[in-house]
């Protein structure tokens, strides 16, 4: 398998070989994934044989329950054999290098690696070193990318809003440390969303974030005005330990999504959250459980998206 030199995710025919980031993926591939996911959701058949005989390795160098489980369910519904490896507590603690771990697993005839890692770029590194017929799917790397989350968010938005070409989307909170925000921004710009806003204090926005094609707001009330979609980002507790924020309470006061702030958005605006939520920190329970919230459908769509990505890759031989 010859990889495309200008885009390490694509093969020479321009088809998806690895899914490492949504940045630089052609819109056709994003639409293909969204359409395929829709066909999986439309069927009553619970199990399809598209990955029969294939081994999918869940390589989680960082703990995760939801993402790992949804990948596992998706792979099993495609009839794959799934092997879960919690590397965080096994080989790495024995001092085995990442490369050795990957080499060993490749020797076990893996077909697909689902990788979660604490460092940005780790899935790129793994993709560069695996045998040519192995596919790598990024399940979240550092602050860089979480492409299947970004895709399931796009699926959710499309499901409720139909069309991206006249949407205003706000992404609120800790953009600096968020792989979800970066993935959403790249997907939204690729799919033609005309206005993306990021909202947060200066300590939680990366330098020159405008260059990603977004508008910056520090005042949440102003930023939410007339938006169609609100994505709330998870605020990690450890952010309070440095000098990035004074307290969860003060963050909630300025950037927590409450009913009165949400009222500034369009009346039919939807609320997304990648989970797990911190109720009372970035989002009020009344909003999280309210009628504009699409947080639980996101999880359902997530399984279909992961099935779509895996089946498309497996079909690109």
């Amino acid at each position, binding site marked *: 398998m010859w990889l495309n030199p200008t885009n390490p995710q694509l093969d020479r025919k321009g088809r998806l070989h690895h899914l490492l980031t949504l940045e630089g993926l052609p819109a056709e591939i994003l639409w293909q994934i969204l359409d395929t996911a829709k066909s999986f959701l439309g069927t009553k058949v619970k199990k399809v044989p598209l990955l029969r005989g294939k081994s999918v390795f869940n390589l989680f160098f960082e703990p995760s329950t939801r993402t790992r489980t949804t990948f596992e369910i998706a792979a099993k519904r495609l009839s794959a054999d799934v092997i879960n490896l919690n590397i965080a507590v096994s080989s790495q603690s024995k001092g085995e*290098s990442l490369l050795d771990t990957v080499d060993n697993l490749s020797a076990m005839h893996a077909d697909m690696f689902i990788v979660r890692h604490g460092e940005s*770029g780790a899935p790129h*590194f793994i993709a560069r070193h695996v045998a040519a017929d192995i596919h790598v799917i990024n399940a979240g790397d*550092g602050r*860089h990318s979480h492409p299947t989350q970004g895709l399931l968010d796009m699926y959710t938005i499309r499901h409720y809003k139909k069309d991206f070409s006249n949407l205003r989307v706000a992404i609120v909170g800790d953009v600096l440390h968020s792989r979800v925000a970066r993935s959403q921004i790249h997907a939204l710009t690729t799919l033609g969303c005309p206005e993306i806003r990021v909202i947060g204090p200066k300590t939680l926005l990366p330098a*020159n974030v405008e260059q990603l094609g977004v508008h910056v707001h520090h005042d949440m009330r102003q930023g939410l005005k007339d938006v169609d979609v609100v994505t709330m980002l998870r605020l990690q507790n450890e952010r309070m330990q440095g000098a990035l924020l004074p307290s969860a309470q003060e963050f909630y006061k300025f950037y927590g999504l409450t009913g009165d702030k949400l009222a500034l958005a369009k009346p039919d605006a939807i609320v997304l959250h990648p989970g797990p939520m911190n109720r009372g920190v970035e989002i009020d329970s009344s909003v999280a459980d309210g009628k504009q919230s699409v947080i639980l459908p996101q999880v359902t769509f997530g399984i279909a998206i992961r099935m779509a990505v895996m089946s498309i890759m497996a079909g690109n031989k």
Partner: protein
Amino acid sequence: MKIHIKGGRLIDPKSGVDAKKDVYITAGKIVAIGEAPSGYSANRVIDAAGLVVCPGLVDLAARLREPGFEYLATLESEMEAAIAGGVTSLACPPDTDPPLDEPGLVEMLKFRAKNLNQARVYPVGALTQGLKGKHLTEMAELVDAGCIAFSQADAPFADTQVFYHALQYAATFGFAVWLRPQDPALARHGVAHDGQIATRFGLPAIPVCAETVALSTILILARETGARVHLMRLSSAEGVEMVRQAKREKLSITCDIAVHHAHLTEMDIGYFESNSRLDPPLRSQRDRDALRAALADGTVDALCSDHTPVDEDAKQLPFAEAEPGATGLELLLPLTLKWAGETKTALVPALARISSEAARVLGIDAGHLTIGHAADICIFDPERLWKVEPAALKSQGKNTPYIGLELKGRARYTLVDGQVVYESK
């Protein structure tokens, strides 16, 4: 031994000479330039037709990894790399293990280097014991042992008072202090320039203010104490502008940049290429252009290789976990020529940055071709294209962003004290 270097293009940046002239060497010294001394008969004639004959190169920052890190590189391997790169004098920073904070360590290094009979090694002593930033080293003893300056390498001071006193003490005796301007707290956990790549890739960032905040402290204390300060490896447009201003007010400072930073930018990180993980980080194109302008107007005195051999395993990691640094001794000349070519800088001022100007910073008698002085000479082919491959590098460090690329210019002969210590086929 009498050597006649015949038919070459002689470039001596210090005197400004750039002409076709022969060089005549007797007993390690240059005895004539141009016309042969009467009755001269050479033991050896080096045909330098089509080649440039210039002073042996002077490198301000080459980590030899001895003592302590022999698994990364040895004095033998790195001295081979130096002469293969045309470098005949080099300064090595004190960040060895143990650091160069005792005369015995410095004497041992000088002794081992001298016995290899290759490039001349000028150790930079540790400014504080163990580079811990708390207690001063015995600087006078270290100078007697062979140190030419003092530095903290990349290690921080315990506090600004220690820093202040270190500069005062060094200034008392006129010792030079070499400092890397980077605020350790502002650079904490950072691995890339705080720009579009760090933002897109979600890499922990090192802001430009990490450099400028440190610089402003250094410049204020240098002014206050009158210490002779050399600034190592600047990386930003704002940083070199501060140095330009300080030089304008006649502050006694000099500065260098690493040769990589005259070429590469954050964009060269590509897709998390760990060979492009450098310290200081590669910054924006605007910074790169400002560094080039500062080289051209003399704000930056010298280019150094910032030679850092890194273990293969320490680079075979995700970007942020990889060890920073690149091998450089053998790339100093071709990358300097590349910069000169791209900016239409003449060879005389370009080579000055890696010979006479670097020697001036070091305060040593080197980097020039003068009758009666030691014959440290680099003879190189400015047109020779070569591919940067692990096998083509003598250094034990094979880590460079230039791996696999073709560069122009390579040493053909290197002479130290009138002896041919390196000769390529």
